[in-house]
């Protein structure tokens, strides 16, 4: 079976700095994969390369979209979204001045067509489209547990709800692969548990998930496989339990000698 996402010998330089060096791993359809590593390891850079925000210096990123494989390295981010990769951001990026429902409706953008003339003339096609956008937008809100909050202003919601709204917006683009950048950051244990629950439910819809997370409870709780990177290099890969006991991983997080001490 072809993997949903295949990262092959990926390099990224910022000037003389090697942010990513020879990264290779695969994600299979329907998996929940954790991407972990100490601060500055290059996790977000890797995310940005896959999402098209950064152009990889070398190497390939292959994505299987609708039964055919596309090389997405260096493609524009909006194209990549249209192909079926959605993401959330480390520090929440919502459309603060818009309502909750509008945020999700904007997520629906790439699956619809009408523009200026449709908007002005408001013909039947456009009206149907608008109704479909609103309806599906509400469904996504309901899915993440924000039903009935559609009219609130996005920035007025509590932190945990903003996270969920951001996930709803990403889901609204109908992705095959959802990339979450530290979704549990700043959440209390209760909120994290809800989040883990949500991640499982998203996977049950057939969406593959790639997750950057520092909260080990969340990683252990949801990920089936974990990829560890350090200094931009692939370090280890395997089941969360295995990786947790891997001396190299402990060393990367806690420094030399820590593995023996533990």
């Amino acid at each position: 079976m072809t993997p949903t996402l295949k990262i092959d010998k990926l390099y990224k330089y910022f000037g003389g700095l090697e942010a990513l060096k020879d990264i290779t791993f695969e994600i299979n359809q329907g998996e929940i994969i954790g991407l972990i590593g100490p601060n500055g390891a290059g996790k977000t850079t890797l995310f940005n390369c896959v999402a098209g925000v950064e152009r990889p210096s070398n190497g390939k990123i292959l994505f299987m979209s609708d039964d055919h494989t596309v090389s997405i390295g260096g493609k524009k981010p909006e194209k990549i979204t249209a192909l079926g990769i959605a993401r959330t951001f480390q520090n929440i990026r919502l459309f603060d001045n818009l309502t909750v429902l509008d945020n999700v409706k904007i997520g629906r953008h790439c699956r619809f067509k009408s523009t200026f003339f449709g908007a002005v003339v408001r013909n039947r096609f456009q009206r149907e489209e608008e109704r479909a956008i609103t309806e599906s937008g509400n469904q996504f809100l309901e899915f993440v547990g924000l039903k009935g909050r559609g009219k609130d202003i996005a920035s007025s919601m509590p932190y945990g709800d903003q996270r969920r709204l951001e996930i709803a917006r990403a889901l609204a683009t109908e992705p095959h692969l959802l990339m979450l950048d530290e979704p549990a950051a700043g959440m209390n244990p209760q909120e994290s548990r809800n989040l883990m629950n949500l991640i499982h439910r998203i996977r049950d819809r057939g969406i593959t998930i790639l997750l950057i997370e520092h909260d080990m409870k969340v990683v252990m709780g949801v990920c089936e496989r974990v990829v560890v990177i350090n200094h931009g290099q692939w370090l280890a890969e395997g089941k969360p339990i295995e990786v947790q006991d891997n001396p190299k991983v402990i060393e990367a997080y806690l420094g030399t000698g820590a593995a023996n001490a533990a």
Partner: protein
Amino acid sequence: MGNLDLQNLTRGAKLRIGILILALVLPFLPLVDNYVLHIVILIYLYMILSLGLNIVPGFNGLLDLGYVGFYGIGAYTSGLLTVHFGLSYWLIIPLAFINGAIWGILLGAPTLRLTGDYFAIVTFGFSELVVLFLTNEIWLTRGPLGLPGIEPISIDLTLFGGPKWEFVGELPYYYLAIIMVLATVFVMNRIQNSRLGRAWFAIRDDEVAAVSCGINLLRYKVIAFAISAAFGAMGGSFFAKWVTFLSPDMFKFWESFLILCMIVLGGMGNIWGVMIGAVVLVSLSEVLREILPLFGLPAEVRFLAFGLIMVLMMRYRPAGLMPIPAVAAQMKAGRVKRKKVPPTVGLKK
């Protein structure tokens, strides 16, 4: 039936209908002479212009300092087509609209990759270019001599054996201007609640997040710029037929600034706020033009007053008289009150 409908209307809708009725009967009220009508038409014209400009800074968050360039292009399109080809104004409106859009695309497509201030500088340069072109290409525009004798608008039904009405005096222009304002408001309202409008708002709030939702930034910014330019050109086409004389110095930079002031004053991004901004600044301009000479000051001093208003607005109401709902809600909550404006150094209350 009529009563029932009236009861169901919200206060805002009642207010709007009231204002519309007032606007329609205004010419027949006592004390309203040609001078007043002239000023009100000017207000309507600036409403169209500021609604058009509003798309770029208000809906997309891009600073556009060259709007008057498109206004000038529209005006000269209208003037030249009338003088050389004698085209009917009803044909000129769509042509000016399209011509504005074309120039909007020609300017926007290569330059909208620039961000923030750099883009503003390019638009500023463009409007100066338009003025230079209008001044120097004498073969086409007669340069500084101006373009006189533009025939007024007429409704010509002779083709169908009907009569021909020529627009004489301010009254027909007054009603035409109302129709054009209503059409502009209608279009803006519809865009605001559409996929296109949402894409623009997304770009305004967060470009990175907008891209991650699959919005092609450049494409939507160019569309915004083109539509904005088209409305500017439409306003210009009306202006040419209304004053029947054009000269390049009518389209100097300060016009752009004035329109921008209306938007900032009224509330960027809010259709009704922007229109209020146009009312306030045009009337103020006229009042000051009368009052200032009484104090022995030249009428040009009124631009200083506009500058002062801008400073005061930035200090006390940075979101404008009528901000967009979200900002208004935040201001009410008192959370972002003056958040974006650091206190002036060395000035204590």
